[in-house]
């Protein structure tokens, strides 16, 4: 069985060979189970049957990607959208970003999706990860032209804890365009998803995501606010059950003046689960009159839960309004007592308070489909469904 290095070809293979695969001595991988990348995986030839998914994705162009294979022959026809197949090395050159280079070398091609100027498009993509110890590579590139709007839903799922999935999403958001990107990850295996976004003048990028940890669920965003008045909003939710790893990494660069950014992360971490948050926002000298906020809140089910939360701001300019912080704690004992004293059994009281903690950011999401899928999943995970009711995640 080959190592991941052997999955790569072309120029990227050479770059990766000299970089090497990630390991725990590298700062960005200190808290990740990098050993999973140094295992052997089997390569997959033909995608297996397209499965039914049960996600609440309605309307717009729909696409299912199995084992990383993009169905180029069966792309949906959608007004305002042009699909094309391009080489993986296009768009952006990655020299030192190991996961981007691995993906470039492993993906045989890139699906390029262009949204024509001033068009408004909804699209959903379901990724089914490989079975057994298969490895999959997917590379997508979105171009949202000036004044256009793209609402993209993605669901990543897979049952095999032995599998590896590498996904890279590249996006350019044109002037005054909007890209709303909603995702839910629930893969049992190791998955690395890296998202690189460039945001133009007065354009907005909104990322809403929920990560249900698997062997390694690692999501990374790199957002460059390149046009004056650009805006980025990231809202990420992580749930790390026992023996799972949920990691959110985000970097926002304020390159142009008058940009705003907001990064919010919340995680629920069970005993023997690990959650990582690494947020970095840099306001460059070229980006005055910026506003930048970051917050990570972590709820530990008990003291055996592991949390690494590192919010970080770097400001090279005076005219900036900024804040950042992180909290780590367990459920409030007084609140637990109060619910029980009113007759709610302890398990139910815990479920209600946990649901309240996770429900707050969910309420703020613009994607109704993501709200629904994540709430459904949480209701099942938290138990005490009768107590949580239908409204718990919706009521303000």
């Amino acid at each position, binding site marked *: 069985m080959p190592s991941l290095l052997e999955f790569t070809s072309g120029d990227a293979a050479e770059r990766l060979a000299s970089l090497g695969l990630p390991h725990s001595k590298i700062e960005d991988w200190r808290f990740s189970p990098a050993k999973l990348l140094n295992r052997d995986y089997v390569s997959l030839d033909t995608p297996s049957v397209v499965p039914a998914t049960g996600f609440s994705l309605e309307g717009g162009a729909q696409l299912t990607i199995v084992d990383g294979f993009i169905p180029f022959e069966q792309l949906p026809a959608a007004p305002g959208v042009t699909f094309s197949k391009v080489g993986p090395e296009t768009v952006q050159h990655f020299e030192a970003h190991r996961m981007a280079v691995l993906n470039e070398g492993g993906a045989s091609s890139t699906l390029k999706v262009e949204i024509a100027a001033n068009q408004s498009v909804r699209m959903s993509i379901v990724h089914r990860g490989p079975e057994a110890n298969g490895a999959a590579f997917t590379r997508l590139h979105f171009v949202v032209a000036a004044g256009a709007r793209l609402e993209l839903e993605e669901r990543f799922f897979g049952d095999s804890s032995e599998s590896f999935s590498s996904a890279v999403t590249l996006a350019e958001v044109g002037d005054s365009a909007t890209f709303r990107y909603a995702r839910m990850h629930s893969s049992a295996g190791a998955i690395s998803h890296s998202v690189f976004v460039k945001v133009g003048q007065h354009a907005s990028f909104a990322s809403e995501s929920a990560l249900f940890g698997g062997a390694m669920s690692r999501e990374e965003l790199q957002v460059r606010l390149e046009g004056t008045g650009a805006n980025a909003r990231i809202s990420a939710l992580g749930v790390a059950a026992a023996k799972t790893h949920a990691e959110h990494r985000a970097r926002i660069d304020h390159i142009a003046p008058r940009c705003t950014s907001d990064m919010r992360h919340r995680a629920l971490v069970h005993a023997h689960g690990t959650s990582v948050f690494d947020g970095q926002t840099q306001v460059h000298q070229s980006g005055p009159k910026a506003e930048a906020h970051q917050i990570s809140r972590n709820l530990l089910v008990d003291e055996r839960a592991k949390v690494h939360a590192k919010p970080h701001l770097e400001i090279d300019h005076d005219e900036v309004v900024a804040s950042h912080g992180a909290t780590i704690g367990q459920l409030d004992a007084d609140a637990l007592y109060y*619910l029980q004293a009113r007759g709610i059994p302890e398990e139910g009281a815990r479920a209600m308070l946990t649901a309240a903690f996770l429900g707050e950011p969910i309420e703020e999401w613009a994607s109704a489909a993501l709200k629904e899928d994540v709430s459904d999943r949480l209701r099942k995970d938290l138990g005490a469904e009768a107590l949580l009711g239908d409204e718990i995640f919706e009521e303000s």
Partner: protein
Amino acid sequence: MTALLQIEDLHVQVGETPILKGLNLTINAGEVHAVMGPNGAGKSTLSYVLSGREGYEVTSGKVLYKGEDLLEKSISERAASGIFLALQYPVAIPGVSNLHFLRAALNSQRKERGEEELSGAAFMKLARQKAKLVELDPKLLKRAVNDGFSGGEKKRNEIFQMAVLEPSLCLLDETDSGLDVDALRIVSEGVNALRNEERGMLVITHYQRLLDHIVPDVVHILVDGKIAESGDKDLALRVESEGYQGLRA
């Protein structure tokens, strides 16, 4: 006749510190008992122990409620069996709506008692009716539990919950503190509306004026972890004018 609540020689400590030191108290169905006493005497401790709050260790003595050992029941089982404590400091719970919370509470209690759960519509009707009774602003029903409520709103919310849950033993810990005169009257009326033959009440207060509204059958003075004196409502008047001096050990 079995007493509703019978406390015998109750000793309770927090950590290593004894707080209740041999407390005796009997409440029969239909009676209202007031408990007064200096700060730190152990009044809240008594109410917490009865409700089952963690951190209060019973080292000896017993508590019978409706003839059964209360102390072996969990917090939520006590609530389902009819014990309700209106807290001196109600807890705020951001992210959980007051209505959702109370419906979950009521239905959990009903389930525990083997009764049918209330539908959303039936619950809403009940909640609106009781909110009106204690003149609770309906806007507070939809807000998160006690989150950002004023001191008086929190206290009123406690009585509202009590009215909805219809407990058999109501423990009110300084429900009057922080209430303006009108609120005091409204809350007292709410409490009085709940007085009946089956229900018992234990009203903890520092102020005699509450007892003008909620007239007690018995008044106890709790000093240093024990009942120092019991009497009728005139005892409260005496304490009001003379203080606790003569009662301290």
